[in-house]
C-alpha cells in the first residue's frame, strides 16, 4: 500500500510539473520575445503583467469547436495529438531533479536510451497529423518533420553516447553521480551538438522548417483546431522543458553546483534548465529560419562529424585517465 501511495504521489508531482513548467516556459517566451523586440508582451490577463495569458489561451482553445476535415482519416487525425504529447510526459518521469531516489519520478536503468527512444516516438504524432489531415501543406509538413528527425536523431544519439562513455553508465542518475566539474569543458562540443539537434527535433526556430508558416501555413498542424491544437502546442513547450532538463542532466551536471550542498540540488537543476530554456527562446528571436537544404547540411556535415569527434575525444581521455 505504501508503495502504491509512493508511486501515486510521484506520478501526481510529475504530472503537475508537466502541466506547469511548459506554461512557465510559454509565458517566459511571450515576455522575453516581446522585450527582445522592444515590446511589452501580454499585460492584461490575470492582472499582473499578463501572467495568466496562457491559462486564458487554454480556456479559449477549450471553447473552440473541434473540427475534423471531411476527407481526413478520422481516427489517426484525432489520435495524433496524444501521440505527440504523451512521450514527453514519460520522459519527464525519468529525469532526476536532485540526488537520491526521492528526486526522480522513476529510476530507469537504461535511462538515456529510454528518453531518446520515447522522444523519438513523439515525432510520430506530427507524422500522423501530417498524413491524416488530407491537406497538401500538412503532408509537406509531415515529410519535412520526418526528414528532420532522421537527420538529427543521429547526432543527438552520438552526443548522448559520448556522455554515457564518459560516465560508464547509461542511467541518468548514474551519469550525474559520476559527474565532475571538468566534464563541462571536456563534453562541451557534445553538449552543443545535443542541444542543437534537440532543438531541431523539437522543430523550434531556427529549425522550424516543418511548420514554416510563410510556406506551408502550419505544417502538420494546419487542420487542427481547439483543444487538439493546444495539445500540440503544449507538446512543443513540454519538449523544451524535457530537452533543457536532459541537457542539464547529461552535460551541465544536473544537481551539482559550485555551492549549496545536496539539499539544494533541485534548485541547481531547475536553474540550469531555466537558463537553457531562456537560450532556446533567445535563439528563436535571434535567428531566421534555416532552409531545408541548410538544415540537412548542418546535420550531416557539421553535427555528425562534431559528435563523432567528441566521441573520439571522450574515448581518448577515458583511456588516458584509467
Amino acid at each position, binding site marked *: 500500500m505504501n508503495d502504491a501511495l509512493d508511486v501515486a504521489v510521484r506520478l501526481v508531482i510529475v504530472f503537475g510539473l508537466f502541466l506547469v513548467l511548459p506554461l512557465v516556459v510559454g509565458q517566459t517566451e511571450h515576455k522575453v520575445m516581446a522585450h527582445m523586440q522592444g515590446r511589452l508582451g501580454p499585460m492584461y490577463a490575470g492582472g499582473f503583467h499578463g501572467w495568466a495569458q496562457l491559462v486564458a489561451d487554454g480556456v479559449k482553445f477549450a471553447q473552440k469547436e473541434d473540427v475534423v476535415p471531411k*476527407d*481526413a*482519416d478520422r481516427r*489517426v487525425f484525432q489520435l495524433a495529438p496524444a501521440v505527440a504529447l504523451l512521450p514527453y510526459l514519460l520522459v519527464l518521469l525519468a529525469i532526476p531533479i536532485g540526488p537520491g531516489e526521492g528526486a526522480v519520478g522513476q529510476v*530507469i*536503468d*537504461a535511462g538515456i*536510451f*529510454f528518453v*531518446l*527512444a*520515447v522522444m*523519438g*516516438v513523439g*515525432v*510520430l504524432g506530427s*507524422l*500522423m497529423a*501530417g*498524413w*491524416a489531415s*488530407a491537406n497538401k501543406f500538412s*503532408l509537406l509538413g*509531415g*515529410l519535412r518533420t*520526418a*526528414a528532420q*528527425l*532522421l537527420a538529427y*536523431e543521429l547526432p543527438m*544519439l552520438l552526443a548522448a553516447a559520448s556522455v554515457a562513455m564518459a560516465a560508464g*553508465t*547509461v*542511467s541518468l542518475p548514474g551519469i550525474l553521480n559520476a559527474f565532475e566539474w571538468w566534464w563541462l569543458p571536456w563534453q562541451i562540443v557534445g553538449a552543443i551538438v545535443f542541444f542543437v539537434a534537440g532543438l531541431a527535433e523539437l522543430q523550434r526556430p531556427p529549425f522550424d522548417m516543418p511548420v514554416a508558416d510563410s510556406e506551408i501555413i502550419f505544417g502538420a498542424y494546419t487542420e487542427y483546431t481547439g483543444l487538439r491544437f493546444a495539445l500540440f502546442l503544449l507538446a512543443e513547450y513540454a519538449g523544451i522543458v524535457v530537452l533543457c532538463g536532459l541537457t542539464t542532466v547529461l552535460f551541465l551536471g544536473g544537481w551539482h553546483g559550485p555551492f549549496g550542498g545536496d539539499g539544494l540540488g533541485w534548485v541547481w537543476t531547475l536553474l540550469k534548465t531555466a537558463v537553457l530554456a531562456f537560450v532556446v527562446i533567445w535563439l528563436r528571436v535571434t535567428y531566421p529560419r534555416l532552409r531545408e537544404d541548410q538544415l540537412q547540411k548542418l546535420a550531416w556535415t557539421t553535427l555528425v562529424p562534431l559528435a563523432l569527434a567528441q566521441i573520439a575525444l571522450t574515448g581518448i581521455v577515458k583511456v588516458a585517465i584509467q
Partner: protein
Amino acid sequence: MILAAQAAAEAPGFLSPSGVEIAFLLVGLVTLGAAVVTVTTRQLVHAALWLVVALGGLAVEYLLLTAEFIAWVQVLIYVGSVVVLLLFGLMLTKAPIGRSPDADSGNRPVALGVALAAAVALVWVVVDAFRTTWIDLDGAVQGSTEVTGATLFKHWVLPFEALSVLLLAALVGAIVLSRKKEQAR
C-alpha cells in the same frame, strides 16, 4: 506471442499464473493482433501505424522479461527510426487516405508460407533453447544494460561483428547503387 502462450502453457504455475504472466500473455495477444492487422489492412499508412503497435508491444514484452536495455533499443531503433523512415517513404509515394484496392499482390500464399516457416523455426529454436528456464524476478536483474553488454561482448562477439559486416555490406551496396544512377544520368 506464440512463444508466450507456449511458455505459459508449459509453466509449472499455469493454473495460478502471476500478474506478470497474465500481463505478458495479454500484451502478446495485442502484439499478435496488431501484427496480423499490419499485414492484412488495405490502408498503407494504417499498416505502418499498426506496425508501431506491434513493435511497441514487443518492447513491452522485453520489459516484462526484464530486458530493459533491449526494450528501449527496440523502441529507439524500430519505432523511432525505422517506422519514421517507412512513413517518410509512404508519404513520398502519396499514400492515399482510405483503402488502396491495389495494395495486394499474388504473392499472398508464398508470403504466408514463408511467414509460417519462419515462425515455426523461431518457435522451435526458442522453445528448445529456453525450455525450462524461468526468470527470477526477485533476484539479480538479468537484462540490465551491464549484463547485456557483458554477454554481448564476451560470449557473442563473433555474431555481433558478423552482423556489423552485414550492415557495412548493405551500406557499401547502397553507395554503389546511388553512384551508378548518377553516372547513368
